[in-house]
């Protein structure tokens, strides 16, 4: 500890310092002001410390022993309750995180399904690998049956989107014949027929070329030529008009389950 030096052993003081108290009354120098400031600081610190001690101690000191025990048990119970609340909230958080993940998965599969359905009904232009099957028929000898067979062959081989002369085939599409002219969905088809199919190119090429298959059946006819061309990148246009169903309405999965 420091020696404060205001002890009786320190006597060698100049006379004017010895009478510091009276001097302070006559003309307070900066030393006196500094001493006063130090005293003021001490007063301030003391009050601050006493107040800081009081703020906690005051309340508890006033309580009786049984009250203190009650306060303690209350605080313990409160702490327990808060602890269990923390646990509960953590569990809820984990639940939410899990369900959020599940929802995201469901959303992704729904998006995937949505894309598939849009391709299926021809609502959008589709692209991907596939084949272009060109049937030249100057004599207009190819019948609707042969075209249906060709389309069937392609679908069987895994074709996902098909267009004939840039006209998209959808689920409700139909070939027909009027005045010996082929129609697709009531629009006349002009030869050469260019069938573009997106799907596994190799499989579809093989499927069209099997003996007695589409190519054979077509090339039996005079002047008819049929060629398959594989494409790594192929575009099939969207259907010009979307189907507007009148008779069929969807049934909820739950309803159909109770039927």
């Amino acid at each position, binding site marked *: *500890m*420091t*020696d*404060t*030096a*205001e*002890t*009786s052993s*320190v*006597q060698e*003081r100049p006379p004017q*310092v*010895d009478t*510091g*108290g009276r001097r*302070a*009354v006559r003309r*307070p120098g900066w*030393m*006196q002001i*500094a*001493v*006063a*400031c*130090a*005293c*003021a*600081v*001490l*007063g*301030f*610190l*003391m*009050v*601050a*410390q006493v*107040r*800081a001690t009081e703020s906690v101690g005051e309340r508890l000191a006033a309580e009786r022993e049984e009250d203190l025990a009650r306060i303690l048990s209350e605080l313990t119970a409160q702490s327990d309750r808060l602890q269990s609340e923390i646990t509960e909230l953590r569990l809820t958080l984990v639940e939410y995180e899990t369900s959020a993940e599940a929802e995201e998965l469901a959303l992704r599969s729904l998006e995937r399904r949505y894309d598939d359905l849009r391709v299926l009904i021809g609502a959008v232009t589709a692209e991907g690998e596939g084949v272009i099957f060109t049937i030249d028929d100057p004599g207009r000898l190819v019948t609707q049956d042969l075209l249906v067979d060709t389309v069937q062959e392609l679908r069987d081989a895994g074709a996902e989107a098909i267009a004939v002369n840039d006209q998209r085939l959808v689920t409700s599409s139909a070939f027909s014949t009027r005045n010996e002219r082929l129609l697709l969905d009531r629009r006349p088809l002009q030869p050469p027929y260019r069938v573009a199919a997106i799907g596994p190119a190799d499989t579809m090429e093989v499927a069209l070329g099997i003996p007695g298959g589409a190519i054979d059946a077509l090339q039996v006819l005079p002047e008819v030529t049929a060629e398959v061309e594989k494409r790594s990148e192929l575009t099939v246009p969207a259907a010009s008009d979307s189907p507007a169903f009148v008779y069929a309405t969807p049934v909820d999965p739950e309803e159909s389950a109770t039927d």
Partner: protein
Amino acid sequence: MIPLVALLVGALIGLLVRPEVPAGFQPYLPVAVVAALDAIFGAVRARLEGSFSERVFLISFLTNIVLAVFLVYLGDQLGVGSELSTAVVVVFGVRIFANLAAVRRVLFNA
């Protein structure tokens, strides 16, 4: 007289301002107060014995506070903060008692 008034003024300011002691300073304020009290009582004794010097008082006031706080801080760093703070309070308490005894001797010749 002036120091006593200043002490009261400081206490009054403290009562009016209602200072919040920062949490980081809470362990050091008590020892600072005790160290300052020691300086004050030393000054009272020196004054009565006729050897008072403002310069010595100011230096002892400041060094007491700084050293006490520093010691407790050091104790905190070493993990014996509360023990060292007790030691500081005990030492300053003994000194305050010694100073008060000297004051008593001068005032009452006993």
